[in-house]
């Protein structure tokens, strides 16, 4: 009776957790409920974890070590996770998400390793379930090593490197992993060495998968790896017949995939193309240096005059704004221009920065009101009425090559058409290339003036100039 009661409570808790995940995701989709949604999902997770510890197995004295280690693991993870999450700067948020995602993937891979070890030591299991274990291992490992590479790349510790014939190698590895999983599920005597080979190949695939990808693809990769980990969690749920893991994992898997597809669409690229991974490699070579003209610089004073006497100013923010932590400064400029009767808004490219919505989060931190943030389409429709466009630390998302140079790797990606405005000022640290590593003909265009320097520094100078006018 008590055992039955415990199991009932456990299942009820899993149902409750599943509901909180659904509600949480739903609420995360609307600005005023998002925070509550996140908390609700967190409570659901807490309930599911607690219920598993208390009711999954009968509490017995001989397993004291097991319980002690579970508690120790929870405490260690909570302390480290909380510290990292609270310390991280807004600019480093994307790599933080990528890192935590990798931890989830690693967790799924380790679970599969232990379960395979059970099978090796006389556990009985259907070959179908063995496939589930192996798929959990493959996807979890790819997600882990891929996320860590993405983390390293965003931290600037790992550069873009493309292997020769990297695409073919990736496809061979992918087929090799699947073939090996099928072989292992069907062979009469699975050997321990097989699973370590599979683990190694999966980790290698994750590395090679993310390594050549650079440029605007990074948000897509993180989102894709996120849905991978969701799938790995779902495989675990399938293995244990656990509804909370299953619904949580599948929800993230499908929602993450949709998010990934939306982002691919925004860049006019197919998901297959991203998965095979070719962006960074071909891109740098394709850039032609032929049609460069001369660059015209603008002084801070001239830029301030241009801004102060405009009717309408649009800011196009990019990663440079995040790096310089200039979100508050740009909001100050907005307020000062507003006092002078200049209307200033922001044109947000969906993949500006290093993550989808990166710029929205950043500007929200600086209390920029929602209506000031225009989505790309709206901004482009209105562009001909804009007197001055201020491009702050953005590059690829305003590169006209996406529209008029079929040889460019970003050809076909929708951009913010800043050249439709009357004047363009590009604020940039140097003449360096954007994240995709390609030249930007915008810088050499007649309408454009360059204002070199750190974004925050330049904006502060602009503000004091505008004030004194």
């Amino acid at each position, binding site marked *: 009776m008590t055992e039955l009661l415990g199991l009932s409570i456990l299942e009820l808790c899993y149902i409750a957790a599943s509901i909180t995940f659904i509600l949480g995701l739903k609420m995360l989709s609307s600005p005023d409920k998002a925070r509550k949604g996140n908390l609700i999902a967190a409570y659901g997770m807490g309930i599911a974890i607690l219920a598993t*510890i208390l009711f999954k197995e009968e509490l017995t004295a001989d397993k004291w070590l097991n319980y002690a280690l579970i508690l120790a*693991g929870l405490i260690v993870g909570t302390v480290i996770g909380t510290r990292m999450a609270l310390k991280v700067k807004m600019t480093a948020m994307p790599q933080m998400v990528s890192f935590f995602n990798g931890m989830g993937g690693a967790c799924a891979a380790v679970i599969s390793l232990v379960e395979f070890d059970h099978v090796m030591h006389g556990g009985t299991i259907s070959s179908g379930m063995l496939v589930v274990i192996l798929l959990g291992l493959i996807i979890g490992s790819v997600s882990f090593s891929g996320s860590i590479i993405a983390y390293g790349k965003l931290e600037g510790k790992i550069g873009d490197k493309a292997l020769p014939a990297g695409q073919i190698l990736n496809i061979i590895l992918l087929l090799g992993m699947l073939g090996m999983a099928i072989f292992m599920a069907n062979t009469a005597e699975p050997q321990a060495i097989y699973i370590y080979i599979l683990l190694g190949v999966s980790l290698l695939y994750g590395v090679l998968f993310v390594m050549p990808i650079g440029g605007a693809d990074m948000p897509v990769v993180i989102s894709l790896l996120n849905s991978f980990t969701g799938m790995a969690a779902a495989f675990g749920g399938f293995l244990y017949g656990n509804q909370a893991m299953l619904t949580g994992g599948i929800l993230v898997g499908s929602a993450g995939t949709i998010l990934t597809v939306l982002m691919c669409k925004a860049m006019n690229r197919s998901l297959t193309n991203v998965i095979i991974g070719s962006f960074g490699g071909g891109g740098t070579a394709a850039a032609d240096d032929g049609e460069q003209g001369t660059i015209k610089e603008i002084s801070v004073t001239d830029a301030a005059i241009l801004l102060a006497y405009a009717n309408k100013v649009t800011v196009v923010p990019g990663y440079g704004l995040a790096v310089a932590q200039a979100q508050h400064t740009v909001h100050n400029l907005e307020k000062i221009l507003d006092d002078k009767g200049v209307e200033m808004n922001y044109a947000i490219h969906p993949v500006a920065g290093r993550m989808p919505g990166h710029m929205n989060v950043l500007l929200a931190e600086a209390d920029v009101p929602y209506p000031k943030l225009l989505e790309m389409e709206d901004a482009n429709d209105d562009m001909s009425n804009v007197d001055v466009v201020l491009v702050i630390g953005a590059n690829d998302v305003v590169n006209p090559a996406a529209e008029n140079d079929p040889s460019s790797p970003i050809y076909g990606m929708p951009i913010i058409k800043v050249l439709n405005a009357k004047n363009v000022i590009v604020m940039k640290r140097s003449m360096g290339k954007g994240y995709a590593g390609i030249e930007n003909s915008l810088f050499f265009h007649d309408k454009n003036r360059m204002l070199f320097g750190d974004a925050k520094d330049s904006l502060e100078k602009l503000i004091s100039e505008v004030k004194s006018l």
Partner: protein
Amino acid sequence: MVNILQLFVENREFIFLIIVSIFLGIEVISNVPAVLHTPLMSGANAIHGVVIIGSIIIMLEAHPTNYLALILGFFAVVLGTLNVVGGFVVTNRMLEMFKKKEK
């Protein structure tokens, strides 16, 4: 082939649940404004930390002298907790900013 059919028949309720969940996942986030893409991704990231339950099950089922399983299980619990706690805290930090703004 027989194995796959057997897996399907034995787990048909779960497969049903999986398919419904896939559509639910798509439906639930289909109206997300671009503003919330990052927090949503981060929140979803925390939710797949539910994989931690698998690591707890490993620990509970491990024989007290099976040290390999205990050690690996311990690491899995730590990794899963990092995913869950880190994920929710980071998401909450991002969303705090949205809240401030509404005043």
